[in-house]
């Protein structure tokens, strides 16, 4: 991990600890929890898009798989929630392998449409054969570890953001490792990386699996927190929301995924008055950020800071 990332990481941990103290209302905490869950999915997609240069419009599928598998196993087989979450991630990973092996030979548009198709198939399956059909099912057990069951919102806030911190730490280390450098090489030129002896396809599949595992974990956490799930939470619109989070935050910076997730989760809360407009507002945000802030919030911010630093050095 780079020095700058470490500093940001500590600030990040500090903020997580601070928020419940500053504003511990159930409302703030709930929005915080959803931001955290979305951040998990967004981090995965950010690595896939920003570092491996692949696009996925099917993250909702993995998110749904995670939620349904973990909820079903813990509810019907009485598995401890931690175990069912692990199973959820395994099933998500298997689904990713099945999709990725043939799909990642495809490029650009074809991959986008293939993942979109996968997401919609999962959505149809959940609607047709999922427990409870289109209306879903409830009574999903809360998260518990070593006999302690988490029921409070603040408890969930800490749990989920600790997991986000853990996932972030792992991902930051990954992208600054050998594999991370290889991924960036793929992003810049597949042909050149192939010529340098990198196994491009295997690396891409691995990243795809990683993003699916993150999404399944997030889905499982969502199910145990909300204790009721139905297919409508896992439609194409969620995949597009995640895409938006990554783009708004900036695809070339992992911190962008977290910032993007928070912005896109908090935004509809601020726009409550414009309920009729929400789809339009989302669309305009995505279009405008693609047209004018293509780099995303975080990379632009980083550039500004670097410029300021440069100015300071000149003055001395």
């Amino acid at each position, binding site marked *: 991990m780079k020095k700058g990332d470490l500093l940001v990481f500590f600030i990040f941990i500090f903020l997580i600890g601070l928020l419940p103290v500053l504003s511990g209302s159930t409302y703030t905490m709930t929005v915080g929890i959803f931001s955290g869950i979305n951040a998990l999915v967004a981090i995965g997609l950010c690595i896939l*898009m920003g570092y491996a*240069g692949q*696009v996925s*419009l099917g993250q909702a599928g993995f998110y749904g798989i995670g939620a349904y598998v973990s909820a079903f196993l813990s509810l019907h087989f009485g598995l401890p929630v931690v175990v069912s979450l692990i199973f959820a991630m395994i099933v998500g990973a298997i689904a990713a392998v099945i999709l990725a092996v*043939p*799909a990642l*030979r*495809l*490029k*650009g*548009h*074809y991959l*986008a*449409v*293939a993942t*979109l*198709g*996968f997401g*919609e*198939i999962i959505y*149809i*399956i959940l*609607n*047709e054969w999922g427990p409870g059909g289109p209306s879903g099912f409830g009574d999903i057990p809360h998260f518990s570890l070593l006999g302690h069951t988490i029921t409070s919102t603040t408890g969930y806030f800490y749990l989920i953001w600790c997991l986000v911190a853990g996932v972030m730490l792992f991902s930051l280390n990954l992208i600054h490792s050998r594999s991370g450098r290889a991924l960036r090489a793929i992003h810049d030129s597949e042909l050149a990386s192939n010529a340098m002896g990198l196994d491009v396809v295997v690396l891409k599949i691995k990243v795809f699996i990683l993003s699916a595992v993150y999404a399944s974990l997030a889905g499982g956490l969502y199910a145990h927190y909300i204790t009721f799930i139905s297919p409508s939470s896992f439609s*194409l619109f969620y995949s*597009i929301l995640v*895409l938006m989070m990554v*783009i708004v935050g900036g695809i070339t910076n992992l911190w962008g995924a977290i910032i993007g997730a928070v912005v896109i989760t908090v935004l509809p809360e601020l726009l409550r008055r414009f309920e*009729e*407009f*929400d*789809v*339009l*507002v*989302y*669309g*305009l945000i*995505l*279009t405008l950020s*693609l*047209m004018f802030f*293509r780099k995303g919030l975080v990379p632009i911010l980083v550039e500004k800071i670097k410029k300021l630093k440069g100015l300071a050095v000149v003055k001395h």
Partner: protein
Amino acid sequence: MLTVFLQFLFSGLTVGAVYALVGIGFNIIYNATSIINLAQGEFVVIGGLLMWFFTESLKLPFLLSAVLTILSAGLIGLFMERLTINPLKSTDLLLMIMITIAVSIVLRGILMFNFGKDPYVYPPFTEGEPLSIYGAIIQQQTLWVIGITGLCIILLFLFFKKTIVGKAMLACAVNPTAAKLVGINVSRMVMLSFILSAIVGAIGGMAITPISLMEYDKGPMLAVKGFCAAIMGGLGSNRGAVIGGFIIGILESMTAGYIHSGLKDAVALVILLLILFFKPAGIFVSKTMLQLRKF
């Protein structure tokens, strides 16, 4: 037995015709720009809903409404290209996919705001007794849908083969740099492809709405199925898109009829994935064509 089968076949041909039109819409833009326009389904919805607006809400005569709908759709295609695709001037495929998704969400948002979430319908183009073949009922509107699709295909064929503008568009598809060198205005051709593709989509929407209703969020599914039709016949080939569209339409209505109606959308998606995984160049494409394309 036969009656039921024929009934499913006819309803499959009807929706298949619309998928074929969506597929052709994909081809027109893909040929001129190598972009897959994921907002293609929204053009169909726009066609249906605007037609409703002009005929039912403003009570305008049928022909005038049809002309106004087509003009508006063309204008929307024009705006989409001039406001998003053209200023970006990018060859980054990832960005191009995302911008068309973004536009599709904006269009869906506008449609939802203006029309709400309810499905819309208007009377068929002609009133009259439905035909009956071996006991299977064919509504007159079904004939309209298939006839209009056929007419569109013939007109497009003539446009690309006989007119200078059509030939120029084809030239852009084959080699944009060479097209520029012989004096073709590539930027204008790209704009034209979006207008044309929006119109083709809207015509499909206008024709199908009296049969299958139209609502603001039908776009993505129509786009996926149209794309499926387009790649089945090899992306860029209009003849392939037509055959692909009908195959998907028929399979879909057979599944809905004989197996389970909830699975009808899954059919196209499964076919889509199978083609993408095993034969992304399309089923009806020759080996030489395959070598020319990049995946």
